[in-house]
């Protein structure tokens, strides 16, 4: 019997790590992975609340979050590839000119 707050704290820690990664990392792919980490933290809190209130919709909503995350990863990585073709760099600090 684990208190529900433990699951929520774990979800919060994962979300916080995701935000910190988004702020301090300079490689665009790692920034994307921090976004995925945030989404995973949110998924955990969905499932935890579903278990607490005995409402299966929480688990169903996790599917929608996963689909949106997959679609976003796909398009985001395609954009990264397109940007890499012209700028030749994956460092966000060096993509600072509107025109090459």
């Amino acid at each position, binding site marked *: 019997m684990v208190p529900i707050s433990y699951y929520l704290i774990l979800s919060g820690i994962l979300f916080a790590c995701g935000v910190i990664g988004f702020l301090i990392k300079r490689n665009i792919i790692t920034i994307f992975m921090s976004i995925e980490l945030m989404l995973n933290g949110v998924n955990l809190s969905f*499932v935890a609340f579903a278990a607490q209130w005995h409402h299966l919709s929480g688990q169903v909503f996790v599917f929608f979050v996963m689909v949106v995350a997959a679609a976003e990863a796909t398009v985001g990585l395609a954009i990264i590839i397109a940007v890499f073709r012209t700028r030749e760099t994956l460092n966000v600090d060096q993509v600072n000119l509107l025109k090459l």
Partner: protein
Amino acid sequence: MLHLVLFLVFGAICVAGAINLLAQSHPISSALSLVVVMASLAVEYLLLGAEFVAAVQVIVYAGAVMVLFVFVIMLLNAGEEERTKGSHVALILGVPGVLAGGLLVAWVLIERSGTQTVALGALPGFPKAIGNLLFHEFLLPFEVTSILVLIAIMGAVVLASSPETKAPGKES
């Protein structure tokens, strides 16, 4: 007791993977630590009884989305990260801010939720029940997400195609 031990073990693996993602400088190591986080999250879902969600987490997230990330890292030959300027402001303001916000939320949660506990496998998420819900109450979001996936596929194909092969009609 077993529930608490398993939760703590896999929770520790999750947090260690998340911190490793931040600490590593090579993106491939970050990607693999994220896979470890997702796998241990799948075990946490199993502890809450969400078996179908756990399986889909491994199949879709760890097995497809992260493979896509690993592909792109391999394809673009991403090397180790360089330390550049511009990251200091975010480091000084952002990290303590996030930690303070996180601690505040955690304190409020512990105060409010009291001693409510969940048992091992609290809400069994059988595929049949989830399928029923998905196709009856959540039918509209389901169809909308299928259109979203179609748009994402088209977007990815267009964005990632090389400029020479784009529009054959615009040659001259």
